[in-house]
């Protein structure tokens, strides 16, 4: 078959060069592909989680949802025994009405004090003018010194009574407690009533977002303390993937770039995503140096190390998932980012706006 050794040698050299050349080209192509499309198999599906906790304490009377149920924003989740808070609200309302009567009485008191003040001012004016009229008559002996002195005493006494009445008016106004047309006593009582009414309304707990009830393991009768989490609500408005990329890949990844997400739960399907952000910090583990400010001075502690293989730190890049899907928080995923894609701020803003919707629980008089 290979009778001509010269020809055979030529073939061998050509094949060798083909193999070496192919290897070089292929290795370069692989490297370039990984540069343009950085990928990681270390990624996890996440969603925002709302810890559902009542704002007031009380026994749970009704639970309107079941575990793993899908709920809509504003749906009633569970109810607490509102009777103690309703009693407090009635008490606060009665208190407000009493304060209203008190305020009316104080206003009448002021009116009475002002009337007394007016009367005393009139008397003081008369006493003063009487004294002023008598005083010149003393020189011509048309009146006695005793009458003049009595008139002077009457005038001074009347002025003292005016000051007393003025103080009484001021005292009554202070007691009323009005500033800039607002009555502080009424405001205080109204705020107490509002607080009581809010507490009554807080006995009904509503879903703050569209989502799924998770880890609901309680039954009616359970005592729920204020602020203590009863169960979790997985916010289904926005799903995202935390893809742990090596720090060496991060300089090419930019917010707004497209990403392909391969979910382990949905083999053979590609979910499109968009890079939202790259964290500025992760907790440093296994670092050679450790700064302990305030500890042993503010010097870094540098321990001797013999690790010669250094692993690149991974940073969780946040990738928002687009479209509806049967996503599950904690599911594994692999991610490829397309660094050629142009950043699309509009798409990103639209997704982020879903995440930043506010929620205030419904309350009376809102």
């Amino acid at each position, binding site marked *: *078959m*290979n009778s001509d050794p010269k020809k*055979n040698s030529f*073939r*061998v050299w050509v*094949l*060798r060069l083909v*193999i*070496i050349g*192919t*290897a070089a080209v*292929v*290795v370069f*192509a*692989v490297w370039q*592909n990984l540069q*343009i*499309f950085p*990928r990681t*198999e270390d990624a996890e599906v996440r969603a925002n989680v709302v810890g559902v906790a009542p704002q007031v304490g009380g026994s749970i009377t009704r639970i309107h949802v079941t575990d793993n149920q899908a709920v809509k924003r504003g749906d009633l989740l569970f109810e607490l025994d509102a009777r103690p808070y309703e009693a407090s609200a009635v008490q606060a309302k009665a208190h407000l009405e009493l304060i209203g009567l008190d305020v009316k009485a104080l206003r009448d008191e002021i009116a009475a004090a002002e009337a007394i003040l007016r009367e005393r001012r009139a008397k003081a004016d008369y006493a003063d003018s009487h004294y002023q009229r008598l005083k010149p008559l003393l020189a011509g002996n048309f009146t006695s010194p005793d009458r003049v002195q009595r008139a002077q005493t009457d005038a001074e006494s009347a002025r003292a009574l005016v000051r007393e009445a003025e103080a009484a008016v001021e005292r009554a106004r202070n007691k009323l407690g009005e500033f800039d047309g607002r009555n502080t006593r009424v405001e205080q009582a109204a705020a107490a009533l509002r607080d009581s009414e809010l507490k009554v309304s807080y006995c009904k707990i509503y879903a703050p977002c569209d989502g799924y009830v998770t880890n609901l393991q309680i039954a009616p009768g359970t005592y729920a303390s204020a602020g203590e989490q009863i169960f979790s609500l997985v916010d289904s408005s926005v799903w995202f993937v935390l893809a742990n990329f090596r720090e060496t890949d991060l300089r090419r990844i930019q917010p707004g770039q497209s990403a*392909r997400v*391969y979910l*382990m739960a949905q*083999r*053979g*399907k*590609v979910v499109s995503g968009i890079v939202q952000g790259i964290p500025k910090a992760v907790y440093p583990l296994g670092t050679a140096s450790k700064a302990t400010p305030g500890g042993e001075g503010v010097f870094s502690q540098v321990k001797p190390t013999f690790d010669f293989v250094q692993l690149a730190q991974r940073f969780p890049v946040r990738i928002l998932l687009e479209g509806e899907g049967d996503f599950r928080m904690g599911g*594994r995923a*692999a991610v*490829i980012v*397309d660094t050629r894609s142009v950043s699309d701020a509009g798409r990103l803003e639209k997704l982020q706006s879903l995440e930043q919707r506010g929620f205030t629980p419904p309350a009376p008089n809102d």
Partner: protein
Amino acid sequence: MNIGAAKLPAVLALIKSSGDPLVDVAGAYFPAWLACMIAGALGTWLLGEFLSRVGLAAVLRPSAIMYPCLFAALTGGVWLVFFSAR
């Protein structure tokens, strides 16, 4: 045996998978590069056998250079066809 250069992209598109970077082996998921390395190692062995059968064993000498090159070419080739992103 020879595929026309014009038909190559169509053939690649046919055999190309979804590009999923994970390979399912009986419920355990392995990174694509591991599968490619196994394929590369098998390919290197088969091609070595084939070359020695047709009397071209000398192509893979010096083995310290030629075997790694063949292995790299096959591994990378499999990766590019099945797992590269486009």
